[in-house]
């Protein structure tokens, strides 16, 4: 294992983003499988978490993944209208739109937040999307967290001292 691990670590210097992919079981996970059986090659940076439906994905889990240091996120479900569970992805679409708006507002680069749809027949699209997502995340570099100074500061000691001739 030593070799493999070293290899992986050596390469890390050139930034190997870690991307958490939440894929719905029925379409996008199947598309990922199809990409495999079609032997389409894509970067190894994604780590897939299989969920039954994008509707299952509580947006807090995405925040959690970023909190834990994911450089990028990919969420992919069935195309709108194709949901195995009738309309789960329509709800998911609103949740993710709001999540994206919030995170981008607070300074997360849009390149890290990737939401899309991929049907069970779209193995090629899946491979393309992974490549695209890896490129996007690489373009903004490693994720440093939600704050510029994430550390603890004593509450009292922060703030701006008002200059004045009080004494």
């Amino acid at each position, binding site marked *: *294992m030593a*070799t*493999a*691990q070293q*290899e*992986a670590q050596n*390469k890390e210097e050139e930034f*190997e983003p*870690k991307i*958490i992919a939440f894929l719905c079981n*029925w*379409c996008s*996970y*199947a598309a*990922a*499988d*199809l*990409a*495999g*059986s*079609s*032997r*389409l*090659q*894509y*970067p*190894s940076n994604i*780590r*897939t*978490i299989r*969920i*039954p*439906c994008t*509707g*299952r*994905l*509580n947006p807090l*889990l995405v925040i*959690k*993944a970023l909190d*834990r*240091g*994911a450089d990028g996120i990919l969420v992919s479900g*069935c195309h709108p*209208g*194709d949901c*195995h*569970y*009738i309309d*789960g992805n329509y*709800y*998911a679409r609103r*949740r993710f739109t709001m999540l994206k708006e919030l995170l981008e507002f607070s300074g997360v680069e849009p390149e890290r937040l990737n939401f899309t749809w991929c*049907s*069970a*027949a*779209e*193995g*090629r*699209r899946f491979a393309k999307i992974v490549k695209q997502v890896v490129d996007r995340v690489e373009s903004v570099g490693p994720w440093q967290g939600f704050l510029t100074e994430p550390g603890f500061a004593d509450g009292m000691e922060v703030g701006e001292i008002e200059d004045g001739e009080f004494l």
Partner: protein
Amino acid sequence: MPDPVVVVGGGIAGIQAATDLAEMGIPVYLIEKSPSLGGRMAQLDKTFPTNDCSTCILAPKITSCYNHENVTTYTMTELINVEGEPGNFRVRLKKRPRYVDEEKCTGCGDCLDKCPVSISDEYNMGMSEYGAIHKYQPQAVPNVAAIDASECLKINEDKCGVCEKICNFDAIEYKQKEKKFVVQAASIIYAAGYEGFSGDLVSDYGYKKHPNVVTSLEYERILNAAGPTDGHVIRQTDGEEVENIAFIHCSGSRDRRTDKNYCSSVCCTYSIKHALITKEHIKDVNVDLYYMDIRTFGKGFERYYNRAQETEGVNFIRSRVSEIEPGSNPGDLKLKATDDDNGYCEQEYDMVVLASGLEPTQQVTDSLQKLKVRTNKYGFVDMDEFNPLSTSRPGIFGCGVVNGPRDIPESVMDASGAAALAGQHAVLDVKDMGVEAAGDQEFRVTQNERTRVGVFVCHCGTNIAGVIDVEEVKEKAAGIPFVEHAEDVKYLCSSDSQDLIGERIKEHNLNRIVVASCTPRTHEPLFMDAIAEAGLNPYLLEMTNIRDQGSWVHKEEPEKATWKAFELIRAGVARVKNALPLERGEVDNIARALVVGGGAAGLNAARELANLGFPVSLVEREEELGGHATSLKHSLEGRPVKPHLDRLIAEVKGHELIDIYAGHEIKDITGFVGNYKLELIPPVPKEVRSDKDLVEIEGGVVIVATGGQEFEPLEYSYQDSEQVITQLELEEELSSENQSLVRDDCEEIYMIQCVGSREEDRPYCSRICCSQALRNAVHIKENHPDKDITILYREMRSYGYYEDLYRKARDLGINFSRYEVDNKPEVSRKGDELTLKYEEPLSGKMITAKPDLLVLAAAILPREDNLTLSQMLKTPLNEDQFFLEAHVKLRPVDSATDGIFLAGLAHGPKNLSETLAQSRAAAGRAASILSKEYLLTQATVAEVDEELCIACGDCERVCAYKAIEVNEEENVAEVNRVLCKGCGNCTGVCRPHAVDLNGFLNQQIIDEIETLLAKDDSEFAKTGGV
């Protein structure tokens, strides 16, 4: 055990029929001539009118059919002949050699790209190539390769043999021989499907001569992301993306020159689908549709058409194309057609798609003859419209396109209906049927044990091990906290490996298993069985996909793939450590059907269910049975309805298993699948009625067959002239003794179509009016040739064989004129004299007539009380207030609510024969539930933590299955485990995280996230160790 049923054809119709029968507990032999299940639907890209991805909705259905314990699938198998009687057929079958052992082949695909031979890919309509050894389609079921003997070098010339050398399973068998064998069957369902018309059927279109002329099935593959062009709409000649494309409707259909005068029924709507999807693929593409009549008569199709026309900018040109010639640039095509305004016109396109119709293959027609089943002149099964789905030979039933042109939902309906009929021959004892082995098995209690995870890493021959260093992964995995045992295995899916897993579980007392191999989508059931076999709860398994999403896609980066595999396993361990031993719950099921509505649909459904052996309670609000059908005098084929209806009513009344509640109104409906309760108001006058009189009936399923009603026209002087009647009133008139309206001095009869249908506030087609008008007009003309009859229509929608009726009507001299919806005929009345004025759009002439009788084709409306009923049933209506099916394609008789089925006009406009077929389907679907002593709930369902729940109702609002509801008394949400499908939408929306989804717990996903992102082993030791 009931006797088996043979289902011929593994397309969507066969799969549905086999699944329904299997769910009833009847053993099924499913025979498919190709190497994979799936049929035509598996080749389609999207499906109308929702543009659903075809594979996405079909694949789960195929898998569950193939894996069903009651289904035995024979691929590459054909039927030779059938001897015997219903209940005891001997079916002789022939299985062609696959040259690959189906048991041994794991579908690993090692051999596929090594084959030196290239042959045309049948699945992609010959537009791409694969080897002599190939998988019929990428998602083949069974997932097994096959060798095309005619091309194989080894078989033909005893050269090569590379696939045998490469195969690690010893699965290649060049010496395989054709096998003939006999199975016993109680009945047979024939669902052998269809062929698209050959592209050169209409020689003027130059198919094959012009490479850029393709058929619709070929176009499906072109549109498909997994097809020969990866979903790019490009031309075969130069690979250029298409900018200008034409679709030619009726390419071969409605054409006496091809001997196919029938309408193929589906081409109009699928061409609209093609047009819309082409528009999605290519921005600014010009799409022209050449058609004669747009026949979007199915449920929801008219809106689809309107959308294409009004918002998507698809051009519709009312003309048949006479011929296709080469265009001015190479590869371009020139179409010659007729313009409504200017006569002759010609237009050039980059690509032309022929909307080819449906026909039974010669093979189908031949084997029908071998089965001694009568076919009609077009080669389809000859079918009695009062006894749909039955063939001329008792015990043999047809479903799908063998019965005539039809779309997917109709085929699926056929299938469930045929299952209901075929099942009647197979059933021995209802109590014996289909009791699923619920939590029969006792599993080891592991809750109080220390967590001991077993990790099994599969080489999959070289599929994984060729890229990933499996042994290193195993070594490393052994060091993950909680891992008690790690092992690498050559092929985990082989049966001795399954035994090995069991042994290791016992040896090391393992209580969690991680299998690192291929995709859980196909292999999870296998490994779940294996660990259940060893006494471990099957939900304590986690699969990590290091092949399909590992070695196969990272071939160039073996180190990274190895590291990734390890990380995935580590995350799998983190996830499985919090897995709960889940169980499927059992819920009592009342073996009685509640049929609401005593019209043709309800009566027929009740009869079929009773014939299957299930008790039925039939509720009808009127005192008399028969419903809408009592006012029909003759069928569309012209046969009297009454004798058939009377016989049906008599059969139902006389059936010992059927209780009839005539004159009863429904007061309330409660419960859910397995346990529905109807509260009925008996026919006691209001004044003397008390609560004591209310009747309560219970059943496991409800069939909604409440019918529809005829629109009462407000226009065309209907309200103020006796000479203006509806088609239904005309039928009554025609059957009465003294015909008061169609008398001698009534010389001129006009009929107006689409009265109340296909208008802004009712944008659906009532489907049957065109054929009904044709039928009535022909009837009059045949009896009174002197009468001058004119039918004013917008599109003549004589789909299927009714096209013959249309031709007959024209032949008899009945006049046809079109009108436009924004320029409707005007009718005025002066005394007894009616004046009708309309503009004939082709000639632009204003025509004035003085009809003696004006017959209006009034729309079919949903019943006004549909809304009340739908609220009681908690099942939705569609935009037009008809009952909405669970899925427009694949669950056309199921409502969105489990255990509620739809039949007849309550579901949407349809003719009597279609109603009878659909009610049989409802019976078949109902039987698949009723036959179970218990209903099993899913194990991976949502669960509510009552402490956390705030009763905000978000979960209830997002649940598509009404499986979670706020209990107003207790102020908490409650999950109905029977209804829950485990989608987790409630879990995704819940703020206090009170709802969690078993199998996908928040804790599990968080652990997985944290472990996947752990920077190194030591960090993992911390997070993974807690």
